[in-house]
């Protein structure tokens, strides 16, 4: 093996000043070309947790379909108008139900995993130091990782309702939407664009979880800690939400507006809650992400 190395050395540009860039970097190196998104995407793609999470998200609608098929219908149809009772009305109703049962926790966990694990796991594997010494500028590394993590999160949040729509349509048919509570019926085609808004809103509302997980990820070597911390926030916030005494202060809890998207599926959609939810989510996540960048830039990487 020694021969090859020597041979290679002979053909390579001679060390020491020749052929290097003005900033002292090796030929072909440019900070802006380091860690392309495609590379980071591939690095994360073949991880087991990615496969497990997506498998779970894609399987859940089918599990629910089976559950509804097995379950014995009690009570007369139309007697109760809860969202769970209307799930079998059609594909869109089913998708709304699937989203409502998963948005609070399952999707939050998925997002927390994708965003909380991304830097912490590199630190845990010790690969972070080699990426930084490659060198990938710290801000760029964080940016690329954030973009890819958010991309995976988006895919997770989108794939569940889409699969639920597919499963629900196959199982219960492409029917008009019955609104929970009032029992009104809205044509399916009218609801479809609103459904897109709903998915978009759920995405934005999970941004806080993503940002917190990312901030924790930057500060720890333990992916579990980052994910757990972000999920812990969801739990604490949900608990605080139940304290009525907090009054309107609760509106500023990061999870408070998580169910506001239900208003978009009413016969007369009300977007005011969603607007507030977006405002709160953007506020928290922008700040948390800024802290993440600031922290990572100053941090001594010892892992």
């Amino acid at each position, binding site marked *: 093996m020694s021969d090859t190395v020597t041979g290679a050395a*002979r053909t390579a540009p001679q060390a020491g000043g020749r052929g290097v860039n003005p900033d002292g970097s090796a030929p072909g190196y440019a900070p802006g070309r380091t860690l392309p998104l495609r590379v980071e995407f591939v690095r994360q793609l073949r991880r087991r947790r990615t496969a497990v999470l997506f498998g779970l998200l894609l399987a859940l609608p089918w599990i629910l379909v089976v559950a509804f098929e097995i379950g014995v219908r009690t009570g007369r149809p139309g007697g109760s108008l809860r969202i769970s009772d209307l799930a079998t009305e059609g594909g869109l109703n089913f998708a709304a139900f699937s989203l409502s049962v998963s948005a609070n926790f399952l999707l939050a966990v998925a997002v927390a995993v994708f965003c909380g694990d991304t830097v912490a796991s590199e630190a845990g*594997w010790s690969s972070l130091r080699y990426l930084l010494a*490659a060198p990938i500028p710290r801000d760029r590394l964080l940016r690329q990782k954030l973009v890819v993590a958010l991309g995976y999160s988006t895919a997770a949040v989108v794939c569940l309702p889409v699969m639920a729509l597919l499963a629900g349509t196959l199982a219960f048919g492409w029917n008009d939407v019955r609104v929970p509570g009032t029992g009104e019926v809205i044509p399916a085609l009218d609801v479809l664009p609103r459904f897109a808004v709903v998915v978009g809103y759920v995405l934005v509302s999970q941004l806080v979880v993503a940002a917190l997980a990312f901030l924790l990820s930057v500060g720890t070597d333990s992916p579990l800690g980052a994910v757990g911390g972000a999920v812990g926030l969801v739990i604490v916030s949900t608990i605080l939400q139940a304290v009525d005494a907090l009054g309107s202060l609760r509106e500023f809890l990061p999870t408070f*507006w998580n169910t506001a998207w239900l208003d978009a599926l009413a016969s007369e959609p009300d977007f005011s809650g969603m607007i507030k939810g977006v405002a709160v989510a953007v506020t928290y996540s*922008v700040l948390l992400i*800024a802290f993440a960048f600031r922290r990572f830039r100053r941090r001594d990487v010892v892992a």
Partner: protein
Amino acid sequence: MRFRGRAAAWVAAAVVLVLGAVTWLVWPSESRVRVLEQAITVVDGPADDQRVTLDTSFFPPADGGRAPAVLLAHGFGGSKQSVRDAAERLAREGYAVLTWSARGFGRSTGQIALNSPDYEVKDVRQLVDWLAGRPEVLLDGSGDPRVGIAGGSYGGAVALMTAAHDDRIDAIVPQITWYDLADALFPDAGGKGPGNGVFKRMWAGLFFSRGGAPAAGGGIASLTGAVPGAVPTGAGDGAGSTPGGAGGSTAPGRTPTAEEVRCGRFLPEICDMYQEVAETGRATPEAVETLRRSSPVSVQGRIRIPTLLIQGRRDSLFPLEHADANARAIAATGAPVGVAWFDGGHDGGDGEVDRLHEQTLAWFDHYLKGAGGAGRPAEVAAFTVTRDGGRDPGTRRQVQLHATADAYPGLSGSSRTAVALEGAEQPVAGPPGGSPASISSLPGFGALAGQGGLSLSVDMAGQSASFESAPLAAPLQVTGSSTVRVRVRVLSGGSAGSGGADGPRDAGEGSGDSRGSGGARDVTLFAKLYDTAEGTAAPILPEGLVAPVRLTVPEGAEAAEAVVRLPAIDHRFEAGHRLRVTFTTTDLAYDSPDAPAVYAVSLASPELTAPVHAALRTPATGPAWWTWALPLAAVVAAAALVLAGRRRPADEHVPELDAVPLRIEGLTKAYRNGERAVDDLSFTVERGQVLGLLGPNGAGKTTTMRMMMGLIRPDAGQIRIFGHRVVPGAPVLSRLGSFVEGAGFLPHLSGRANLELYWKATGRPAADAHLEEALEIAGLGGALERAVRTYSQGMRQRLAIAQAMLGLPDLLVLDEPTNGLDPPQIREMREVLIRYAARGRTVIVSSHLLAEVEQTCSHVVVMHRGRLVTAGPVSELLSGDRVRSGGTGARLEDVFLDLIGEKA
């Protein structure tokens, strides 16, 4: 130092936080309001000869001094305790507040006279006298305090009645109260007055029973707690539940007398009157006279002070018509009048406690304290209607919007819209005995209907006739009483027409009459205005209100007609919805005829006239200010966070050092605890050298290497690689290959994929990687395609060194590279490194295998406890005069031990 500073900062922050929290928790939330409980004896009665002791509470103004006074009256069946919270609230706002249990209620003595001018009004006037003697009360003149009265229901009526009989009263806020008690109990939507009215049997029964025998529990709170602004709901203190009370109150453990059971604490005249009308279901002229003596209708034109009339939209006992009549009567005197229809009333609803308090306060602040000068108070509109704003998206609670207008138009609206109704003449049956009865609302159990406007309304089959409009093309906001002209024919049966109150009507007698032919016939109908939508939704009966009407078909005539004023509502009929007018022959809450009958009901003119008040508008509310301000502020703060402290140091390139692979000057790095890992380290590595970095564990070798990679920042000193200063992410690091403190691979990927992806992550051309050569060094063979997690320590080590050599960097830094390698591999590695350096590249190796360094390295740097011990060519070190321990020969190990032993 640094550590201690940080700890101190954290401790300080924690202390401040805890102190803040404790202060916040311990801080007295509200000043306590003092209260003076006192029995005040008054003299009343027609001849001013009855002594009554009133149980009162006086709340001096919280901030001292002389302040305007407010008399706070309680609702029917309540006591002074019912209004205690409201009284304390007003006292805190700087009013002297007096509450009392009216005669016949609570611990006060006397009997209930229904706000008679001879009894209750005289009592209140003497309370005003008492107030005039208090040093806390502001006086307008001798014996004339500055005083307002507020109260709900029974208490609202006494406010109105006292205002008419005592000109010392300066402002009043009567709530959910009556204008004409006779009309409230015997309403007739045909406009023929209480004499022709339909008995409101259920409400009347509840009303009179509350002043009677002991109530069983607090099941029916809507009378006592009717005015949430002044009377907290549920705080009703039933008259009979107060032990020791005089009058008709029954002490526990004692069997009440027959008279007590019959009349409770009512004045016998009132009691007799009620028993008579309740039995017949018709108001006698004497009863109307008695009830009207207790009603503002009898004092028209005598209330000339600012009056804020707050009436409930959900009130089938004292509907909005009463506030309307009061408003017209008072406004006619030129006094300022405000009218507010709120979400509440005797049938439940939200109550809007805080809103009513604010409005009451604003009214009194303006007219009693004189704040805000002339004109009307800015906070109270001439006409306010609480409308449903849907659910708050956050709390999921009902939201109230307040539509306001500068003028109160009355129940006919400022304009009228005609809506065409369709429907042929329909036969309806009056069931014998009036049962089963249709349902509009359940008096006393308004809470059952809930806040969501759940419609209880049920129309019995065969007993109703409906007339419906076409779907509305545009939304219609009805504010007031719609009217419709109805025509009725008697097909069979029916009650004997009375044409007025002509004494007791016996049900059996009426039934007998109905068999006969001829004679006038009475027809009782209940008119409802429904909002119906297409599809499955049930029709909505706004506020559960119904308008009873009694028509008389004269003898010989075929039919009777009447203009029916439908219940006063504020309701928005959405586009696409229909208006439906329904006439039923029965209603659970009212007295329905016992005689079976069949009528034919039709519309005399096929339209409904709906009142509209377009000026009544809800102030437009955009999204809350923070929905845009908060994200904006966050973005600015985030930008500041990211940009602040972002130093882009100039490259500080020193061209003279272009050919020097590594120069370290004064490098220092301390741990958190202040101990120095690297202390003032300086050395230079020239091209072509294989430098050994030697030192025992903890000497600072690895820390130094981390600083070379830009992973950690030195506290002082600098590192230059080829003349470029090393900072995190410095481009010059692309000419550095490194392997420090173990391998770092993605365990789920194969060795080859790891190396390929690593090189792609550097963004450099694939051809520059020399991947195959590096892989050859790793010598992993087929294992290359396996996931790294299956590798042994040695395999990872070799793969990591191969990764460090990717791109054949000009400076290679390896930390303990031979760890985990077997002897042949070690030998090969040694040769690789020597050859690598032979071509003008530079290798820095740290190792604890001294013999290994001795054989591989040309130069050596010895470190101990972060400091440089010695540096120089290995050969020089071995032959130099530093070797003092004779006899053992020139081995690096000896030199090393000697060096550090000396330092230690």
